[in-house]
């Protein structure tokens, strides 16, 4: 699966832009601030219905414009699909496939798999558990539509329950039956989501180990441990036991929204004991493992977006990624680089078709 054409209107710094991409390697060069990463983000947006870098949709609309439109042609063999994403200030986001709007945005997620490797990925290692949950939820959502459905429903019930706890606190009363009305579905969904995550990890972990070894030429053993209180057989009892704490905090203290993923290297915390290089290798291994699982599940090669990797990675890891591109184990790849001479030098070794795009020239 690959993106043949992309047209942007009022997306981030783009007034308007049209691109026709190659099936294999597309290198986007241009100065800092010219919009290379924004172009990657536009591709990400078309595939996953939102920006990779901006949580607030409205901020992806060009400054002082009223709306944005992204329009792309995805190719899979002989099949062409036109995907359009549009957003008007103050209105709901619309995604369309061949001009037909989706009823639910979530129905689109996973149809056109995409994986992004970006410079700030190592935040996954260093930041709090929320970042890691967000990453794995994104991976699972693309992989399994049923996961996304359960996850969205869980969050909906969770926010209802939390609002209910607030109502109880504000009006100073407690209705056990009402609380229980939310407890039952919440516990059932938590257990289902836990099962999704646990089973996913069984397939994911061996791939991460393999890619880490490939990328680093080193012998450390990496591990990825999924931790969840929902795993305990007495979770439903535990969940209900925390009722008074929940009431006090006006927040639900137990559930899959408290899960974490622990990254280890030789049995020790990667965050504390891993070098910069080890942390980078680890997160790239995560992304490549995601790529392989998506390719297996969707029976098509995802689009790989590589943001600024020549600047942020050392020669060995760059060489390994280029090797993968050359071997054909990666499909369509987008690479951004601020220094064209460097990317020319590196990509000239690649046998596959490479196209260069100078970004920002004609529009500034």
């Amino acid at each position, binding site marked *: 699966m690959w993106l043949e054409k992309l047209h942007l209107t009022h997306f981030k710094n783009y007034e308007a832009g049209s691109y026709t991409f190659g099936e294999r390697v597309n290198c986007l060069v241009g100065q800092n601030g010219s919009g290379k990463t924004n172009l990657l983000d536009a591709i990400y947006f078309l595939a996953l219905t939102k920006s990779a870098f901006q949580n607030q949709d409205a901020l992806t609309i060009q400054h002082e414009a009223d709306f944005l439109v992204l329009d792309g042609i995805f190719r899979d063999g002989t099949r062409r699909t036109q995907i359009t994403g549009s957003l008007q200030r103050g209105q709901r986001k619309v995604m369309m496939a061949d001009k037909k709007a989706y009823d639910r945005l979530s129905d689109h997620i996973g149809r056109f798999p995409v994986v992004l490797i970006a410079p700030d990925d190592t935040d996954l290692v260093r930041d709090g558990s929320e970042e890691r949950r967000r990453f794995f939820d994104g991976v699972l959502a693309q992989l399994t539509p049923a996961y996304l459905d359960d996850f969205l429903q869980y969050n909906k019930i969770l926010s209802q329950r939390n*609002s209910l706890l607030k109502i109880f606190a504000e009006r100073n009363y407690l209705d056990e039956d009402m609380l229980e009305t939310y407890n039952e579905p919440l516990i059932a969904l938590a257990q289902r989501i836990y099962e999704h995550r646990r089973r996913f990890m069984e397939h994911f972990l061996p791939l991460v180990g393999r890619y880490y070894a490939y990328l680093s030429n080193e012998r450390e053993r990496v591990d990825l441990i999924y931790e969840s209180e929902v795993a305990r057989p007495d979770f439903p009892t535990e969940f209900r036991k925390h009722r008074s704490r929940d009431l006090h905090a006006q927040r639900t203290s137990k559930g899959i929204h408290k899960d974490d993923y622990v990254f280890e290297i030789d049995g020790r915390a990667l965050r504390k004991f891993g070098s910069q290089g080890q942390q980078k290798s680890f997160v790239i291994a995560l992304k490549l493992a995601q790529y392989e699982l998506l390719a297996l599940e969707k029976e098509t090669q995802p689009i790989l977006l590589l943001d600024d990797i020549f600047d942020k990675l050392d020669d060995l890891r760059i060489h390994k990624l280029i090797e993968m591109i050359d071997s054909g184990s990666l499909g369509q790849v987008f690479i951004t680089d601020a220094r064209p001479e460097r990317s020319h030098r590196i990509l000239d070794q690649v046998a596959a078709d490479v196209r260069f795009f100078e970004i920002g020239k004609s529009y500034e």
Partner: protein
Amino acid sequence: MNYPSRLIEDAVNEIAKLPGIGKKTALRLALHLLKRDEEQTRALSDALLSMRTQTQFCRQCHNIADGELCAICSSTKRDASLICVVVDTRDVLAIENTSQYHGHYHVLGGIISPLEGIGPADLHIESLVRRLQQASEQEPVREIILALSPTMEGDTTAFYLQKKLKPTGVKVSTIARGIPIGGDLEYADEITLGRSIVSRVAYD
């Protein structure tokens, strides 16, 4: 939009606050009223004001009423042993139009959604429980029918009502969910179709 007069602008803004009416429609309505007799506008505003100030809610079922009891609760032809629980008056009208139901109603006045600040105490749930407890021995309530929308909030409300009504010992049922009459199986969404299979009906 630029208006020729402040008075028209005020009127348009007020009319456009109504659900389903935008500024353009509001302007059309305002200009329409200007063209007609003053008497017509007076009749409209009088009707609206009387509706707002004089409408009462039935003390038994909370449906809209002209007096203390609504027409349904005060009718001797209705079966008081059946109570159908609905969200608002529009649902009462919808069920009345089916001509299939001859019992009483209980209007909740909303649906439980803490996110929107609506808890169970904001709805007429306590009064439903009281109504069952106070039902006379000669005329006990046989069944409560929950007619709520099959959304997450509707299901939550139904689930909560079940819990609250259980101690009264009255039978509680919910309206069936399934394929619309005249609908086509292949176009039914999978959740509805799945539910229809699970709760299939045997031929007698």
